[in-house]
C-alpha cells in the first residue's frame, strides 16, 4: 500500500494556493459527462453534492434516512469554529491552526490543518448567504462564543442547534440542485459495497430500504461522506442509523483505514438509566461554564440524596485536581476524571448493573450568585431537555452526567486531495481521518465537514478525473453483477438466522466489550481480552441471532443486522490499533502511559505517525503501514491543564 499524502511543497501559508494552481482542471463543457456518486447527505455529503452539481457534474446522492435533511449532522449543538477574529481577541488562521494541532495532541498533518483554518473563514460567509440564522449582536453583527476550552471566541452558533441550521443550509443548496435536475437524490438507499473496475472506485451497490432490492450504480468517481462509527460502542450520542458499513466495505476492498482507535468521549452526557437504554444524549459542554462537578467524598455517603450531603463532604474533584482550569479542563481529561471517581465507587444516581456511573453537575452556586433568570437565559433549552429525559429539574436538583462516546477521529486514510488509497474513492467529513489527530476540538467537526464538501473536494476531484481516471462504462461491466451477487448471498445468509436473540442484544454485548476495554481507558491486558472476546461473539452472532422478515420489503432488522456484522469485524481492528499504539495521546489513553498524577504521556519517538491498516482477507491479520508526521512549524509540546 502506497501512502503518498501528496503534500504540496513550500511554506505552510502558500501550500493550498500553490496546490490549487497546480491541480488539473476539467473543461467546463466536459463536466456534465462525468457522473459522481456521493454517499451521505450530512454536512459533508450535502455540501459536496451541491457544489459538484453547481460546477456541472452529474451527481447521484444517497442516504439512509427518508430525507437528506435528517442526516446525523442535524444533531450538532454547540457551534462551528472560524478564524474570523471578529472579537479582536487575538485570533488568527495561525492560532486556529495551532490550537487544532495541539488539541489533536500532535497526531495530525500540519498542511491539512492549516488549510482547514484558512477555509474556515469562507464557510461562515457561505452559510450566511444561504440564510443560516446565526446568533447576532444588537448591532447586527455575528456573535461568537468561546467553546471547548479555547482562549479566544471564534465559535459561531445558532442557539443550541448549530448543526441543524448548517445542515438545513447545505440541504437547501442540495435541493436547489435537485430542482435544477443536476442531482438525483436517492433516499432510503443504503450502500452495501464498493465496486472496483481496474483497481479504481467506479460504483456502489445499494439496498433500496423500501423494496429490499439490491442494485448497482456506476459512476466516474465515488465520494464517501458516511459519518463516524461511534455506534460500535452501541451506546453513543450518535443517531441510531450511524454505522461503519460503507467505510468498512471500502476497507475490505483495499482502502487503508487510519487510526481506528482514536475515539472521542464527551464528558457531559445524560447517564444511562437502565439496561433498555438505546442511546445517550449529549448535554452541551457550555454547561461546565456555570456548573460545578462533584461526587460524595466518602463511600459511606454514596446513595444519599445530594441535598443530604453537606458541603464539606462534597468532593469537587476537578477543582481540586486542576486548580487553574477547574471544571473547564478539556474533554478527555474531564471524562477520565469522572470515570476514575465512579470506578472508585463514588458515583451517584441510578445503579445500572450494580454500578452508579454518574457525577453531579451542580448549578446551585451559579443560581445563588447570578440569579435563576441569568441561568435560565443561558441554558433554558438544555435544562428543559434534561428535565424531559431525566425527569428532574436542574434548577432544583444537580444534573447527573457521565461521559459517552461522541466522535471518531479515525477513518479512511486520505491524501491531501481527500482521495483514499483506492483511486477515485474520495472520503469527506467524519468518515475520513484527516484533520483532528488524536482528539477533536469542540466546534471543529462541522467546520471540517463543510470545508471538505464546499471548498476542497470541488477542486481536487477534477484533478483525479483529468489525470488518473480511465474509460467510460456502466453497470453492464461484470464487476457490478459480481458484487450484487455477493451482497445478495450475504442478505440470504442473514435472513436465514433464526436463533433466539435479537440482533440489538448482540450489538449491546459488543458495546460493553468495547466500552470496558477500548473505551476511556485502555491497557494491554484489557485489549487482549477484547481481542479474544470479539471473535467469539462474532461466531455466536451466526448461531444466536434472529433476523425477522424477508428481503423483499422494508426490513429495519435486516438493515441493522448487516451493520452489526460489520461492527463485529471492525471492533477487532480498533482493538488491534489501540494495542499497537503503545502510548497515550489525545482521546487514546493507555493506562500504562501516564504520569503519577494520571496525565497522559505521549511517545513521540515511537508514535509520531498515522497508523494505516490494510485488509488481507477475513482469515489473516491486517497489514500495518505508517505515514510519518513531521512538524516544521510547531514545536511538539506536552498538553498541561494543571
Amino acid at each position: 500500500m502506497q501512502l503518498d499524502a501528496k503534500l504540496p511543497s513550500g511554506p505552510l501559508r502558500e501550500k493550498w494556493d500553490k496546490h490549487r494552481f497546480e491541480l488539473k482542471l476539467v473543461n467546463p463543457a466536459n463536466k456534465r459527462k462525468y457522473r459522481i456518486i456521493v454517499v451521505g447527505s450530512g454536512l459533508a455529503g450535502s455540501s459536496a453534492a451541491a457544489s459538484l452539481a453547481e460546477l456541472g457534474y452529474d451527481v447521484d446522492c444517497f442516504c439512509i434516512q427518508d430525507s437528506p435533511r435528517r442526516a446525523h449532522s442535524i444533531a450538532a449543538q454547540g457551534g462551528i469554529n472560524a478564524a474570523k477574529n471578529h472579537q479582536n481577541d487575538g485570533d488568527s488562521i495561525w492560532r486556529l491552526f495551532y490550537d487544532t494541532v495541539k488539541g489533536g495532541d500532535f497526531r495530525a498533518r500540519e498542511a491539512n490543518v492549516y488549510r482547514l483554518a484558512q477555509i474556515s473563514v469562507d464557510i461562515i460567509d457561505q452559510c450566511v448567504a444561504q440564510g443560516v440564522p446565526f446568533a447576532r449582536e444588537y448591532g447586527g453583527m455575528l456573535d461568537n462564543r468561546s467553546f471547548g476550552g479555547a482562549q479566544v471566541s471564534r465559535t459561531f452558533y445558532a442557539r443550541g442547534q448549530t448543526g441543524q441550521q448548517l445542515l438545513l443550509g447545505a440541504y437547501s443548496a442540495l435541493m436547489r440542485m435537485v430542482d435544477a435536475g443536476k442531482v438525483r437524490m436517492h433516499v432510503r438507499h443504503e450502500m452495501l459495497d464498493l465496486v472496483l473496475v481496474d483497481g479504481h472506485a467506479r460504483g456502489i451497490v445499494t439496498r433500496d430500504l423500501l423494496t429490499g432490492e439490491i442494485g448497482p450504480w456506476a459512476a466516474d468517481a465515488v465520494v464517501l461522506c458516511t459519518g463516524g462509527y461511534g455506534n460500535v460502542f452501541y451506546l453513543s450520542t450518535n443517531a441510531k442509523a450511524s454505522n461503519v458499513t460503507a467505510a468498512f466495505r471500502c476497507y475490505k476492498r483495499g482502502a487503508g483505514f487510519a487510526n481506528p482507535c482514536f475515539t472521542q468521549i464527551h464528558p457531559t452526557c445524560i447517564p444511562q438509566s437502565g439496561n433498555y437504554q438505546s442511546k445517550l444524549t449529549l448535554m452541551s459542554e457550555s454547561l461546565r461554564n456555570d456548573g460545578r462537578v462533584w461526587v460524595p467524598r466518602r463511600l459511606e455517603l454514596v446513595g444519599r440524596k445530594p441535598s443530604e450531603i453537606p458541603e464539606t463532604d462534597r468532593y469537587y474533584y476537578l477543582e481540586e485536581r486542576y486548580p487553574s482550569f477547574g471544571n473547564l479542563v478539556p474533554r478527555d481529561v474531564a471524562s477520565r476524571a469522572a470515570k476514575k471517581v465512579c470506578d472508585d465507587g463514588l458515583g451517584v444516581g441510578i445503579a445500572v448493573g450494580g454500578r452508579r456511573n454518574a457525577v453531579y453537575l451542580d448549578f446551585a452556586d451559579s443560581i445563588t450568585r447570578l440569579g435563576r433568570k441569568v441561568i435560565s437565559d443561558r441554558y433554558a433549552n438544555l435544562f428543559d431537555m434534561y428535565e424531559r429525559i431525566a425527569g428532574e429539574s436542574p434548577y432544583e436538583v444537580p444534573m447527573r452526567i457521565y461521559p459517552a462516546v461522541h466522535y471518531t477521529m479515525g477513518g479512511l486514510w486520505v491524501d491531501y486531495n481527500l482521495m483514499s488509497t483506492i483511486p477515485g474513492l474520495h472520503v469527506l467529513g467524519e468518515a475520513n481521518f484527516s484533520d483532528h489527530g488524536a482528539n477533536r476540538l469542540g466546534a471543529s467537526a462541522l467546520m471540517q465537514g463543510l470545508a471538505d464538501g464546499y471548498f476542497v473536494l470541488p477542486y481536487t476531484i477534477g484533478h483525479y478525473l483529468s489525470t488518473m481516471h480511465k474509460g467510460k462504462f456502466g453497470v453492464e461491466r461484470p464487476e457490478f453483477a459480481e458484487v450484487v451477487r455477493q451482497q445478495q448471498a450475504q442478505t440470504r445468509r442473514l435472513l436465514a438466522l433464526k436463533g433466539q436473540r435479537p440482533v440489538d442484544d448482540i450489538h449491546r454485548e459488543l458495546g460493553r466489550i468495547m466500552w470496558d476495554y477500548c473505551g476511556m481507558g485502555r491497557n494491554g491486558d484489557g485489549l487482549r481480552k477484547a481481542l479474544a472476546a470479539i471473535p467469539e461473539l462474532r461466531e455466536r452472532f451466526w448461531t444466536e441471532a434472529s433476523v425477522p422478515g424477508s428481503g423483499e420489503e422494508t426490513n429495519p432488522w435486516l438493515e441493522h443486522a448487516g451493520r452489526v456484522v460489520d461492527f463485529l469485524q471492525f471492533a477487532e481492528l480498533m482493538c488491534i490499533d489501540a494495542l499497537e499504539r503503545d502510548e497515550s495521546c489525545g482521546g487514546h489513553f493507555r493506562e500504562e502511559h501516564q504520569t503519577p498524577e494520571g496525565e497522559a504521556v505521549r511517545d513521540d519517538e515511537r508514535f509520531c505517525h498515522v497508523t494505516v491498516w490494510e485488509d488481507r482477507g477475513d482469515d489473516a491479520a491486517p497489514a500495518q503501514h505508517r505515514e510519518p508526521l513531521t512538524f516544521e512549524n510547531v514545536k511538539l509540546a506536552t498538553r498541561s491543564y494543571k
Partner: protein
Amino acid sequence: MRLQLHIWRQKNSREPGRLVPYAVQADEHMSFLEMLDVLNAELIRKGEDPIAFDHDCREGICGACSLVIDGVPHGPRAATTTCQIHMREFPDGAEITIEPWRAYAFPVVKDLMVDRSALDRIIAAGGYVSVRTGAAPDANAIPIGKNTAEKAFDYAACIGCGACVAACPNASAMLFVGAKVSHLALLPQGQVERTARASRMIAAMDAESFGGCSNHGECEAVCPKSISLDAIAKLNREFMRAVATGES
C-alpha cells in the same frame, strides 16, 4: 409498569392495516421508543413480526420519529417529539393507541412508517436561496438585527416531521411551508426570490395533494418546535404579494 397497547399494523402501502393489541412491561424512565424496542425484542424472541417505526436521532431534532399516540401526533406532551416522550407521562396500567401519521400525501410504508418525500419536493420548489458555493459576500457585510435573526431562527427551527399535516383535519402542509417561507422572507438574503418562492412552494404543495388551511390551529398545537400560526398568515401575505406583482 404494565401497559396495554393497540398498535397499527400494515404490511405495506397496498394492503389494509388494522390495530393489534399487545401487552408490555415497561419502566417509567424509558423513552416511548425504548418501550417499543422492548416490545420488539420480545416479539423477535417469540418469532413474531416486530413493529416498524421511523426514528434516528432520538433527541428531538432529526424529525424522523412520527407516531400518533392516543390520537395526538407526537403524544401527550407539548413541544415534544415522540422520541422525547418518556413513560412517566403515563399511569401504570395505561391503555395506549399508536398509529402512523395519516394524510393522503403521506402513504404508509409499513406499520408506523410513512413516506414524507412530498415535503422534500416542496423544498426543492424554491425553498432555498440561490447562491453558488464561493459566491458569498463577507458574512458581516449585511447586518441583521438580533431580533430579526431570532425571529428567522424561530421559523427555521422546523424539523420537517410532518406532525402539522397529521394533526390537520384537511391534512394541510401550510405550517411547514409557512415556516420555510417566513424564515427566508425575514432575512435580507431571502429577499430577491421572495415572491417567486412563496408561489412556487404553494403550487408544489397543492400538486402533492395536501389540503388547504381553514384555521383549525391543530398544527401549532402539536408542532414539537412550537412554530407559530403566524407563519401561515405570513405565507398568505407572501402569496398575495406574488399575485399582486404578477409573479405567481
